């Protein structure tokens, strides 16, 4: 049940281990890691965000997931700043007694985060850098949870 917005990288294994440490009531733990894909010009990705609103939005998304599914634990980490190809951008994880709840909650949090958390991606560097357009299918992905 916690949210982090940070420049630093995170340790995926340690984060998932912490969610289940010392407990035996979790049957299913699902994690999603979003990574920087290499774009054609090989440049980095820069993420801008809205400090203050970002944390609120991520907490609201986590709380909404907690309300929809019976979760034993959840975690959202989103990085900002300049990230190299292959770097971790985001972690979303959900722990539940049963696998479908964990899968659905993680998928839900990602769909919401894509359209509701104030992050903006810029690809490349210098003159050729360009803001990434929002995807219409991200809006469609959000609607399937209505």
């Amino acid at each position, binding site marked *: 049940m916690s949210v982090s917005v940070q420049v630093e990288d995170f340790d995926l294994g340690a984060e998932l281990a912490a969610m289940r440490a010392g407990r035996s009531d979790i049957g299913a733990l699902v994690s999603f890691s*979003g990574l920087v894909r290499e774009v054609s010009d090989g440049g980095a990705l820069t*993420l*801008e*965000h*809205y400090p*203050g*609103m970002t944390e*609120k*939005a991520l907490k609201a998304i986590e709380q909404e997931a907690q309300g929809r599914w019976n979760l034993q634990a959840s975690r959202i980490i*989103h990085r900002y700043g300049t990230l190299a190809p292959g770097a971790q*951008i*985001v972690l979303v994880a959900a722990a539940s007694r049963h696998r479908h709840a964990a899968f659905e909650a993680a998928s839900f949090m*990602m769909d919401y*985060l*894509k*359209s*509701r*958390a*104030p*992050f*903006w*991606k*810029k690809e490349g560097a210098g003159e050729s850098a360009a*803001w*990434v*357009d*929002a*995807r219409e299918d991200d809006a469609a992905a959000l609607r399937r949870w209505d």
Partner: protein
Amino acid sequence: MKVLYFAWIRERIGLASEEVDSAASDVSGLVAELAARSEAHALAFSDMRAVRVALDQELSTLDAPLAGAREVAFFPPMTGG
């Protein structure tokens, strides 16, 4: 009120934030005032289909009343995750 800009809206206007005394009652009225400030502002707000707004850090809509909001942010559709 404090007005914040993000991503290409910030770049186009050339400011991350500015203090604004607004007489507008809703977001659209505020946008009209801001667009009158400079050519850069006018350009940034020329296609409002590409602009999203948050009032006091909550997502809102262009037809929403300002209702005493102290912080108004304009930005493109989000592309995180």
